[in-house]
């Protein structure tokens, strides 16, 4: 089945995150990447080591997000991941060949693919893999905002906003969970990365609200992080 491919445009059209205004107000310097204007750095950005005692919050809304659903999704996932994903739900698996790309199994017939930048190769692979399969692929890049919390103080911040046990015990590396965060529906993703990170995905129109709530809940402990510092940390 064909999917909805209403995705980002070229020709000088600039894509903005739902928190763009917030970044501007904070005096962020912007960089353009893949047609997106992203906050590269903030004037009062904390030193690189700050995440060891606090937590950084980075706006990753520009990440390409593709939802695949349908009865044929397991076969597609097998092709993408190079092995059988098994039957475990809420798994988060690195996407081979996509850097920090992740494949999140939301339900038996629903996968979310998350790629931090550019996804041309992935789209091509998907086009091949989904051909003839009973799946619908949908680019949900503009449907959800994604924020990355990185550092030592993730848990104290998150537990002020959600009843879900989002510690490493309740949400171990390589898992995800849909829950309520700050009163709205959210997907929490614990990537299987060395750097302690929690990704928060919420509806686009609630992006700025949740961004503000994360900063408010982590007052004094959470600071905004530009994408340059983020890339250094994640490297």
């Amino acid at each position: 089945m064909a999917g909805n491919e209403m995705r980002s445009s070229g020709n000088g059209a600039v894509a903005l995150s739902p928190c763009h205004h917030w970044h501007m107000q904070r005096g962020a310097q912007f960089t353009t990447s893949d047609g997106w204007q992203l906050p590269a750095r903030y004037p009062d950005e904390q030193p690189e080591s700050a995440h060891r005692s606090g937590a950084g919050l980075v706006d990753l809304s520009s990440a390409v997000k593709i939802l695949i659903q349908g009865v044929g999704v397991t076969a597609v996932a097998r092709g993408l991941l190079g092995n059988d994903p098994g039957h475990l739900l809420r798994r988060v698996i690195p996407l081979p060949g996509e850097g920090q790309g992740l494949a999140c199994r939301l339900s038996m017939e629903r996968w979310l693919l998350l790629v931090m930048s550019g996804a041309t190769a992935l789209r091509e692979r998907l086009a091949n893999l989904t051909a003839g399969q009973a799946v619908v692929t949908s680019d949900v890049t503009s449907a959800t905002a994604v924020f990355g919390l990185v550092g030592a103080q993730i848990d104290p911040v998150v537990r002020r906003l959600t009843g879900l046990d989002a510690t490493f015990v309740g949400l171990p590396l390589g898992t995800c969970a849909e829950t309520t965060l700050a009163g709205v529906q959210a997907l929490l993703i614990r990537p299987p990365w060395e750097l302690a990170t929690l990704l928060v995905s919420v509806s686009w129109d609630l992006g700025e609200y949740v961004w503000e709530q994360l900063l408010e809940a982590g007052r004094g402990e959470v600071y905004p992080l530009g994408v340059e510092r983020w890339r250094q940390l994640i490297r």
Partner: protein
Amino acid sequence: MNPPHASADPHSDPGAALTFSFEGQTIAAAPGQSVAAALYAAGVRIFTRSFKYHRPRGLFCVSGDCPNCLMQVDGRTNVRTCIEPVQQGQQVCHQNAWPGLGFDLLHVFDRLDFMLPVGFYYKRFHKPRWLWPIFEHTVRHIAGLGKIDVHALPHVDAEVEHLHAEVCVIGGGPAGLAAAGAARNAGAQVLLLDRQTQLGGHLLDQGQTSDEIAKILSAGANGQGNLLSIHATAFGLYEGNLIGAFQGDKLLKIRAKQIIVCTGGRQQPFLFRNNDLPGIMLGNGVLRLGHQYGVKAGKRAVVLTDNEGGSRLAEQLAGMGIEVAAVIDLQPAGQGSVPTANRWPLLRSHGITAALGRRHLHAVQVARVDEKGVVDRRPVQEIPCDVLCLASRPAPANELLYQGGMRFQFENGCWLPRRAVPGLLAAGAAAGTFDLQAQIREGRRRGLEAAAALGYAVPELPELPSVPGAASAPLPFPSRSAAGKSFVCLCEDVTMKDIDQAIAEGFDGIETLKRYSTVNMGPCQGKMCGATASALCARFTNRDLGSVGTTTSRPPVVPVELAVLAAEQQHHPIRRTPLHHWHQAAGAQWLDAGLWKRPESYGDPEVEVRAVRTRVGLIDVSTLGKIELIGPDAVQLLERVYLNKWGDLKVGRSRYGAMCTEEGILFDDGVAARLGPEHFYLTATTGNAEAVFQWLELWKATWRLNVTLLNQTSAMAAMNLAGPKSREVLGRLTKLDVSPQGFPYQAMREGEVAGVKCRLLRIGFVGELGYEIHCPSSHAWHLWEALIQGGAEFGLKPFGVEAQRVLRLEKGHLIIGVDSDALSNPLDAGLEWMVRFDKPMFHGRDFLLRLKAMKSHARLVGFQMLDSKRIPSEGCQVVEQGRPVGRVTSSRYSPTLERSIGLAWVPTTRAVVGERFWIRWNDGDVPAVVARLPFYDPDGKQLRS
């Protein structure tokens, strides 16, 4: 005396003291002291006046359980000052007394008690009836505790935090420490809650040092697990092992796989005349005052006890420098006894008949206890003293266990847990174990049981203590005919005679007794009176305590500020369209539409209306619901949920449609476009976006249709470019053929606008040539700015929801939910043209068929006022011969038509163009006339141009 927990004695070291204000006086206190302890040290003995009789009351429990120390602190009412830490500069004052605590005029009620028998509110103030307003005013004035300053800013700093643990131990006394230590040693993640700032529970009252307490906790420690100890008060145990607790202003919601409740026990008051006099205190309260706050309760004490603990208490009092005048053992001969001591007189099988003193205790009258456990009315001696220590047998503090589903049985003089609840354990005095070593042993056992239930390997479980530490003797009572007031409930001033009388009136079950007498219903919620009330009920009804039972325990166990409970509701989500900040910068006035913020207008809606009618306008409609349907059964699903037909809709075309519930009630409407043979894109109203998506999902699953639904509401922004010049504006920004032939009315096109991939629908909610342009949210700003700039030379103006409502009203378009309600059907709402009864099946078909056959009673019609400048409010009644027969649903002044127009439900008999009807307007009825719809562009030339 050297206070171990209060850091300094302010009277010996004024330099280290804090000061606070009490009734205009400056009081010195040591850091760590409670407000009440500092006041007591400063000589204050009356802390409050009782609720009903306004009798003087002094410190009693010193643990935050009883109502005797309630005061107003920094404007907060009903603060339990015995556990409220002193803060520099606090403002403390009394409550429930006038003019003051020393002399309270309302103490006259103590003499008028014959007018206030038990259940007096059922018996008094009925006659004469005309006096009731005076009674009511007086009662309202007198009743209640404390005065809230309604002008003060609310306390809004509360926040919520969610904690998770494998094992949560509630109570940091010996049993709790042992349980937490054992579970931790077995490898579990343990969270230990204690309401005191220091761990140790009642051991702290005994003067035990923190080193001794730490030994219990660390016994056998091997560091396998984790233990986090926090100072927080648990107030409720809810379904799913959820613990409600608070830590200052913070609400804690704790989920634990295993919960061990070790909340200890509470000493109970004894009954005798004037048992509420200041100077009468629970033994543990006296010890807490001395050991934790460094304050001596008095100079000469009498100890009244019903167990061997009385002797220990006397020893400890002597150790604190308080002279022990006598120890009085209530236990009848042959039912246990207090160990003899030579240092003070021991009166076996004696009780107290009365406490003497007006505002403070100065002596007690002592009498014998007979073999039935009744204290004789005739005193045998009078013992001068300034403090009477009640060393009663503790009752389990088991409220949380009851809330968790555990049940208790009365055995051997104590309530013991009898029903196991998975994931819930009890240890220590809360479980009826009163011996210290037995408490520690039981705590360890429960800690290991909890760890074992979690799958941790544990050593062999230690034996549980075989015999509970409680004595078996029933509580001795005064004679039923004893004179004076013996208080059962200190909160509500319920006396023993009140209980007797209530039972005599037929309220002989503990729950009905509670409701009638109000015992257990005050601020202590039965902590000080529950056991006594049950015991009295048993005694006066000649039943055993087990069959009388106890009252139900419900959260909160301890008072919680509403602000703390409300912390859960601190989140107020705001949904912003991608253009929110553009609107803000353009001076938008906001309208709340559910969680959405929508621009109502940018200053003058009339100017905005004229811009759309004469030039071109642009409105942000991103809040519309947007849903894609993909799959071979997409048409089938649409056919079944919408009233109109979809199978014949060509690819590249769109159509307006509405849907009903199964009862034929209008549910929602919107436009659907066909993107491909099996691919549709539909819009829903802002308010129903999520409901429509869920509705489609429900019926897709119910009918097992092969269609995938995608909710694109957030993914896609939408804007409506409308007005005679809209084609020219759009033409500048796209290569699409926007000519009337290339892009006709109700067509759908996909293509780039200003470099952004868009989906365009040529529809006209506002009744003009218009394009609804949908694009990814991330590119909405770019597209919007391009349209604004491109339209500048054509006089383009952004317009808000208010202008849109006027424009659609001029066009006669209804808004479902505004012009319809929970009884409106499409036939009466003027949508009969849409309903395709020739379809074999759709939601509401059967009902609508029946409605069609019946005579309609009301119709939605357009109207205009005879006085063209008058605009009736929406919701005004349509009346006929003075009776309401309909209502106005929409009304506005139309700048285009220069008169007021509206939509209204009127009787079918009136629903004829030109027919006059009446609208109730304030104090009169004004005439309106049914008008032909639409008011504007009736031929649709503008729309289709």
